[in-house]
């Protein structure tokens, strides 16, 4: 056997020394930091602005930190800003948004996941044709469909209510979500599906007992997509429902989009940040699952 003589001090031995500030690392983190600045700059401006008073904003330095921090705009955006004659800020629509969000997210994901599952595992003749049409549907500008869908909903007797809106969200979420789910389920081992069939589980049995528990990550991905989309939706919310049901974004729009009169930028910023909070919380909460889920959904094309 080889003799292991004493180690020569100058010789490389053990782990390769790593420079903390190697050129590579500086490049890597430098780039990421630069990019992060680009991404975070608007956020910074928004936060800073939302903490300033209007006179300070009029002075025009958007990047300057507030000389005098005020939380007034936040309070106003949440509880005082007027929408027409109702002066209770975003808080008014918040629960409506939640009421719309929950069933819309659940229904759209439920429908799309079942579609994706059927397309991946239970192919029948013609399924691909419908799916292709569905994907093309993702490219139709939705303004075009506003009136026909109004007519459709009227015929279904759903116009003006919560369920009409839920249906609309389900329809518009369907193309991308179905694509996502289909790819995810296709990537799952087919033998598992076969085993369940041999075990006598039917279409729904396999979906609920086998597929569903195994695809939580993609459900989280879909949820994030839908929560973001539906929470921030304004047009559908306002077109297909009545004032009792107007989501928070209507208030946001009202605060932000007043054509005439004074624009309170600080309140606008605070309102936007407040509105974005719910999706942001969901991002933070499900960061890791998000990545894993997408992997399975996206990788197989």
């Amino acid at each position: 056997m080889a003799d292991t003589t004493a180690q020569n001090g100058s010789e490389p031995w053990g782990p390769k020394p790593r420079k903390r500030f190697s050129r590579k690392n500086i490049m890597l983190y430098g780039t990421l930091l630069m990019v992060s600045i680009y991404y975070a700059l608007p956020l910074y401006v928004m936060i800073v602005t939302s903490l300033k008073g209007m006179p300070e904003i009029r002075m025009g330095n958007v990047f300057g930190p507030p000389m005098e921090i005020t939380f007034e705009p936040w309070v106003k955006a949440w509880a005082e800003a007027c929408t027409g004659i109702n002066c209770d800020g975003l808080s008014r629509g918040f629960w409506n948004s939640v009421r719309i969000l929950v069933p819309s997210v659940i229904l759209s994901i439920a429908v799309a996941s079942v579609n994706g599952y059927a397309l991946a595992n239970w192919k029948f003749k013609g399924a691909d044709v419908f799916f292709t049409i569905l994907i093309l549907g993702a490219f139709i500008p939705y303004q075009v469909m506003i009136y026909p869908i109004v007519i459709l909903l009227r015929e279904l007797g759903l116009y003006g209510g919560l369920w009409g809106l839920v249906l609309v969200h389900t329809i518009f979420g369907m193309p991308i979500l179905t694509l996502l789910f289909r790819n995810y389920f296709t990537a799952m081992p087919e033998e598992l599906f076969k085993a369940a069939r041999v075990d006598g589980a039917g279409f729904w049995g396999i979906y609920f007992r086998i597929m569903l528990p195994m695809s939580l990550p993609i459900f989280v991905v879909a949820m994030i997509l839908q929560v973001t989309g539906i929470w921030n939706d304004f047009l559908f919310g306002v077109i297909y429902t009545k004032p009792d049901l107007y989501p928070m974004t209507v208030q946001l729009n009202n605060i932000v989009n007043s054509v005439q009169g004074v624009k309170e930028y600080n309140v606008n910023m605070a309102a936007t940040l407040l509105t974005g909070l719910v999706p942001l919380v969901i991002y933070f909460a499900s960061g890791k699952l998000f990545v894993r889920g997408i992997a399975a959904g996206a990788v197989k094309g």
Partner: protein
Amino acid sequence: MAIAEIQGQSTEDVRPPVRLFRNLNAKIASIPMIMTAVFVFIGCTVWTIVHSFTKSRLLPKLDFVGLDQYERLWGTRRWLVSIENLAIYGICSLVLSLVIGFTLAALLDRKIRFENTFRTILLYPFALSFIVTGLVWQWILNPDFGIQSVVRGWGWESFTFDPLYNPDIVIFGILIAGIWQGSGFIMVVMLAGLRGIDEEIWKAARVDGIPTWKTYIFVVIPMMRPVFVTALVLITSGIVKVYDLVVAQTSGGPGIASEVPAKYVYDKMFQAQNLGQGFAASTMMLLSVVIILIPWAYLEFGGKKRG
């Protein structure tokens, strides 16, 4: 001994069940999809196309006027500018989203510290509604109190950066914000794709002495085709519908320099109360999407069997 002999024909002759009832549950479950595809997407499309031959104004009406709407559409400078803008914006946004999304994903994939933090920062624009973030970008890019003035304040008096106020480059100004908002999501998709690449490919490239960037370009990217396809669907469907972004930042300005087709459609339908014109414009948009996508969709979804 050869193949076992078959004797005694069995008497019962089970006929194959009716085609329609095979896979019945799957068909039932697909009803929402089929209904959506047929009634909503096809139905709406047909409805739109039919109405594009009418002179509907505020309300959809069936007064046919032939191709008038189309003639006017193609005689309108704003429409032509919109198309051109969409082409420029579309190509740049597609390329940049993919490049930036991929580059960031690749950077995050280098086993870095704080990956979670960086990822969230890059993703957060996706969560914020564009009504106000558009305004913020408008400020940041405003030559009088945005970046230009800050840089000039540092002493570079000749520094010029006013993308939103220069008709020649305004579309690129919009691009800056568009990329800002959308690329984080693409980055996440790409990151996920990268995590799926076989570790041994990396090792092989290292043994071959191939620099990392070359490995990405010549080896990894070609392997991620499916991910790029998914990203492509996401980006292009977003591009075709781009509207808020423009309205929030420039309302199509300066002049009509940053008009886009979706905005043209919207303005014609609801602002100018000329539904027919809006329908004609959207029919043209749809037509181009279909021309580009049908062959691709067939290859991607129709032609290939599950394997």
